[in-house]
């Protein structure tokens, strides 16, 4: 079956350009502002939206994204409200793919089958679950595929050629290449190394390859996007949001725009790139 993600990457391919993929945390800094931010992202140039599911113990994330999750949780964000947010977004945008990104425990506690049904009907297209490697595919990946959701896997610099086929086996939608060994918001991605890694992955799959971790500026977004089918930016957007908050950590009149304006300039970076040759 064709998902919004498949459709979006097919369109991008036709236009000969790479995707600008944005990450923001659901419910950060509060549910209403978060919805406005998500609504503003496609207008700012986002081709795909990754929406973080807040979790108390995000072991592969850096301080910025951890703090964003804790801000959201403090104001009562839940997995159910994250699905509500997507449902509300779908009333104004039925084309932009939404991928939920996070950790397994909240989904496990929600109940896998119930979650997949509710996620599908809310208008979610794909899942990236950091702590579910292929060794644990029975948990969520296989049921998600059956439910018609893309399960997007992370490939990393430690995923060698021997392991790649296992990582790609049940992956659909796109492959998310993590440009660094490290947590979100850490070192800067190196475009030359990324280029070689993307070429290596493409020898094993037809799927689009998007690259994230360590992309903060329009220039690096452009460099990465010229070697990949998409560039993912998260921490920089989350930091822009944080810097717009008042002393108590509440949203201000500037918050939505702070994220949208940075997204506009990053999108220009990505759109200035020639898409990687197939």
């Amino acid at each position, binding site marked *: 079956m064709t998902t919004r993600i498949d459709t979006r990457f097919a369109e991008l391919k036709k236009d000969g350009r790479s995707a600008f993929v944005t990450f923001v945390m659901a419910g950060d800094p509060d549910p209403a502002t978060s919805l406005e931010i998500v609504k503003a992202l496609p207008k700012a140039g986002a081709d795909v939206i990754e929406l973080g599911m*807040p*979790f*108390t*113990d*995000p*072991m*592969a994330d*850096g*301080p910025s994204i*951890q703090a964003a999750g804790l801000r959201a*949780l403090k104001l009562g964000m*839940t*997995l*159910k409200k994250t699905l509500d947010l997507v449902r509300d977004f779908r009333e104004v945008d039925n084309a932009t793919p939404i991928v939920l990104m996070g*950790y*397994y*425990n*909240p*989904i*496990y*506690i*929600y109940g896998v089958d119930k979650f997949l049904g509710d996620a599908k009907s809310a208008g979610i297209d794909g899942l990236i679950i*950091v*702590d*579910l*490697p292929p*060794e*644990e595919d029975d948990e969520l990946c296989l049921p998600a595929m059956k439910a018609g959701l893309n399960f997007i*896997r*992370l*490939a*990393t*610099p*430690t*995923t*060698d050629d021997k*392991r790649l086929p296992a*990582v790609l086996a049940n992956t659909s939608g796109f492959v998310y290449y*993590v440009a660094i*060994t*490290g*947590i979100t918001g*850490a070192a800067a991605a190196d475009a030359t190394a990324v280029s070689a890694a993307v070429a290596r992955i493409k020898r094993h799959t037809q799927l689009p390859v998007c690259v994230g971790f360590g992309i903060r500026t329009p220039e690096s977004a452009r460099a990465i996007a010229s070697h990949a089918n998409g560039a993912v930016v998260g921490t920089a957007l989350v930091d822009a949001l944080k810097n717009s908050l008042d002393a108590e950590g509440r949203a201000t009149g500037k918050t939505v725009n702070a994220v949208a304006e940075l997204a506009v300039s990053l999108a220009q970076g990505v759109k200035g790139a020639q898409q990687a040759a197939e």
Partner: protein
Amino acid sequence: MNIAKPNSYRSGPDERGHFGIFGGRFVAETLMPLILDLEKAYTAAKADPAFQAEMDGYLKNYVGRPSPLYFAERLTEHLGGAKIYLKREELNHTGSHKVNNVLGQIMLARRMGKKRIIAETGAGQHGVATATLCARFGLECVVYMGAVDVERQQPNVIRMAMLGATVHPVQSGTRTLKDAMNEALRDWVTNVHNTFYCIGTVAGPHPYPTLVRDFQSIIGSETRTQMQEVEGRLPDSLIACIGGGSNAMGLFHPFLDDPSVEIFGVEAAGHGLTQLHAASIAGGRPGVLHGNRTYLLMDADGQIQDAHSISAGLDYPGIGPEHSWLHEVGRVNYLSATDEEALAAFQLLSKLEGIIPALEPAHAIAKVMELAPKRPRDHLMVVNLSGRGDKDVPQVGDILKGKSK
């Protein structure tokens, strides 16, 4: 629920690291290749007689094993029931059972050619053991410790620094063991090429729960032999405190298939089970954190809840996956002791036996005080004295002073 009883309680985990539904490998892709390497290295080491021989040498002459099995005559008289034996893990070099496991993991790290070792620590005992063996073998050592624990376990922080380790106080979350483990995992994801993560308890992704258990099982194996020597038979009951559960697994595992042996694990009930506590089995349910599925303290939405215990080494919202399974199949009976009960036991053992226990095993002693009087005089009870109280002397001193005022 009707759970089938296994033929052996000692054969787990399966090849994917599962004890029943518990365990597994819930980690970021970056770490998976290394975890698979570790599993291979461990399998090879286990089959290599040279590895065991080298371990045995260090266990005897560096750690000081076997640790004594001591008949606590005055405690026995005082409680007026079961004959109480203390397995003296507090007499090990570095002052706790943690060194058994660290020695094994450092030997593995050396086999794998890793030069940088990271560890998380709550009470600091695992950190001290790791810093000690890193000093002994000339390895770089980085220890993550919650900022709250850095405050309450100062003696161990100073020891780690003297041994040449770098201690990183962790400021995120509740600033205790759970957050130290998150930070250690982040370091590992970042430095996976040259770094070995030395986990302090029977938790984390497969194969850690298994290999830590195997390295700690020397506690139970020695106890078997020693009890045969002094009493000519097996003990009737075993009891140990549980943070992640490594000292308990080490004592229990060699006895799991002996149906005559009653087994008790003691979790930290903190201020009480209806308030802040660290008793994952009594107050939690199955979830996924830190690489494994196990009993966890969490809210209705699957967010991890703050644990609390007076004892930094028990202050963790989870428990090793094998314990979760042993609970569900009903082989081990999990109890809990409050901060107050542990403090009382700490004082009782100090005064009656001249042994100042760590606050962690004081939780086990607290339940001995409850169970032993109800058992007959020929009942043989072994309690794992997992560590000594030096690290807790300043903290307990302050608490007692506050009380006497």
